[in-house]
């Protein structure tokens, strides 16, 4: 069922993204990259909306899901039909292919196939050994799905409010999507959350590949996927049925239109409602998604201002088009954002420990406690160091460090705005994660040991996309200058 939904969503996206300036291959790439977000995001938001309105059974949420699909089809039809990446592809395509390109492509292709086969074997191992997923899958994510699938809608606020353990306050993208599919297939099969994991993993690969291409480094797109998917921590979490890999995927998927827009000022944008929807889903996936989404948006706006200053300077028709795009983006983000707000304000219980992350006494003392910062830094470095963190990360971090050393000079907003956005988002997000650890109300050593690897996995694909994008021909990255008017 999950893979069927992905294929269906990708087919719809392929259709919605058709228009002037799109090559078939680029449409396919975008459809694959965004497919899982729409395949699981639409049913999840629709199911939550139906349940929140007190409507039981699959019919109400199916109607809501169809309504969302129709709305997206309509907005996609009205949106400008051209895209930055198509233009980038033309520029890249015109350049003479450097010697060695074919060998790199061939080797990358072979290794990608081998990696995919090994990961499929990993998928089967999970299916056999841990069909219910890892600890958190049972305790948190699939447990919420069972509440959504089994309880009458009218009782859900009371039930979520009464739960004291298993993070009933966590957002419900996974829970809602799993519950919706359980209702469709008529049983609570473990294959649903497991299949969704596979869908998200494919989406992550497709989005990462496309991001690096958009940044003007198509030759480095495959290698970027190879690095991320040969990192043991990704093997550990990909099929564990938890929300961390989905969030890492959605961060890339949401960054796609922002990077495409930054990389080519001359080209019209994607249907903004579709871009907004993907970004909104980040908030509906995990609490950390709000931070990632805000960081991406803030950096995007800052870079737009730096690159063109067109946020405040647009006039007349351009201003109304810009306002229209912003409105479309906001409307697209509405399902995810509204679902989160309604859930947090009406269903989710207040969890005292989480409320004390920022509030409560002793926060200033924790913030100024050098020992806590040292512990966070030491634990992070332990993950980065292959001698101590190799079992989870291999040599992924040192290689990315080397990449930054080799091409860090290209990390300038005029030359490589996409890479600046991606690496900036990774850096800012991780800084806030570190701050959260320092302020943590839990035992710090326990908190770090239980969460740090998953949080680092959120930023690994962003950083990998940035480094591999820089590694390509940096001059192709910025796209063409806008035509003189």
């Amino acid at each position, binding site marked *: 069922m999950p893979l069927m939904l992905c294929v269906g969503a990708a087919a719809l996206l392929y259709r919605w993204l058709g228009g002037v300036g799109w090559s078939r291959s680029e449409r396919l790439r975008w459809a694959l990259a965004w497919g899982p977000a729409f395949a699981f995001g639409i049913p999840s938001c629709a199911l939550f909306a139906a349940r929140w309105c007190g409507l039981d059974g699959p019919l109400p949420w199916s109607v809501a899901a169809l309504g969302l699909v129709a709305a997206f089809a309509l907005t996609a039809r009205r949106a400008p039909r051209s895209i930055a990446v198509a233009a980038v592809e033309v520029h890249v395509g015109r350049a003479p292919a450097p010697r060695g*390109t074919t060998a*790199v492509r061939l080797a990358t292709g072979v290794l990608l196939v081998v990696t995919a086969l*090994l990961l499929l074997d990993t998928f089967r191992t999970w299916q056999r050994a841990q069909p219910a997923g890892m600890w958190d899958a049972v305790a948190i994510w699939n447990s919420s799905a069972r509440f959504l699938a*089994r309880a009458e809608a009218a009782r859900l606020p009371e039930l979520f409010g*009464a739960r004291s*353990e298993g993070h009933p306050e966590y957002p419900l993208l996974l829970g809602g999507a799993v519950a919706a599919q359980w209702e469709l297939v008529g049983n609570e099969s473990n294959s649903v959350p497991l299949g969704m994991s596979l869908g998200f993993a494919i989406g992550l690969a497709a989005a990462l590949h496309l991001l690096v291409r958009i940044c003007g480094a198509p*030759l480095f797109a495959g290698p970027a996927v190879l690095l991320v998917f040969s990192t*043991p921590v990704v093997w550990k979490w990909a099929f564990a049925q938890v929300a961390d890999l989905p969030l890492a995927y959605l961060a890339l998927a949401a960054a796609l239109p922002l990077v495409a827009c930054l990389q080519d000022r001359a080209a019209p944008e994607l249907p903004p409602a579709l871009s907004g929807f993907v970004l909104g889903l980040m908030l509906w996936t995990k609490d950390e998604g709000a931070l990632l989404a805000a960081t991406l948006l803030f950096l995007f706006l800052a870079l737009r201002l730096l690159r063109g200053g067109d946020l405040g300077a647009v006039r007349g028709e351009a201003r109304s088009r810009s306002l229209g795009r912003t409105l479309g983006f906001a409307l697209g983000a509405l399902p995810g954002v509204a679902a989160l707000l309604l859930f947090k304000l009406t269903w989710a219980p207040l969890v005292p420990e989480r409320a004390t992350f920022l509030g409560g006494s002793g926060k200033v003392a924790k913030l100024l406690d050098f020992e806590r910062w040292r512990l966070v830094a030491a634990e992070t470095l332990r993950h980065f160091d292959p001698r101590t963190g190799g*079992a989870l990360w*291999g040599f992924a971090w040192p290689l990315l460090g080397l990449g930054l050393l080799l091409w860090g000079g290209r990390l300038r907003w005029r030359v490589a705005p996409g890479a600046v956005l991606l690496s900036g988002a990774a850096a800012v997000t991780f800084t806030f994660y570190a701050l959260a650890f320092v302020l943590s109300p839990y035992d710090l050593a326990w908190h770090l040991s239980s969460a740090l690897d998953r949080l680092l996995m959120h930023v690994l694909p962003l950083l990998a996309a940035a480094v591999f994008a820089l590694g390509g021909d940096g001059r192709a990255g910025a796209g063409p200058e806008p035509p003189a008017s």
Partner: protein
Amino acid sequence: MPIPDQVRARVLSIRAILFLALLLPVWALGVLRGERLIGSVAVLPPFFGEDLARFDRVRPRLRASAGAILLLDSSARSSYGQRYFAAQYSLAPTVLSLAFAVDAVAGEGWKGEPRYVLCVFDDPGRHAAALAALESATRRRGLGFLAEPVDGVLTLVRLGGAGPP
């Protein structure tokens, strides 16, 4: 002498070749370590042991109940999570609360309203003692007590309601 742009465009830069060449061992090592990691997953017993299936068997009895109490061995307090989460996952949407002592279930705070208690004890002696204490506390107040053993570890108990059955 600077390398002309045309030449530069015709050949992958040394840095790019070095980086991509280094990716190969990084990939190989990552895959090997990933295989090792997944190998350990493959031989792990399921995270929740037999508890998922155990609590699944009770679900039909609790379907109509909004809440139930999970009474666990106090010696297992530090590792209650496995039992609790397995039970909550299996028995959703019945909301479970946790107790580690009979007094917390059938003590002074209990007004005698009917309630389901899931007694989960690995040690048969402690299991029997907990059931006896529960029964005694309930009957002393003239209330109903009905115990249904599910297996050697789990007993479903219905407390309260009208008189002793």
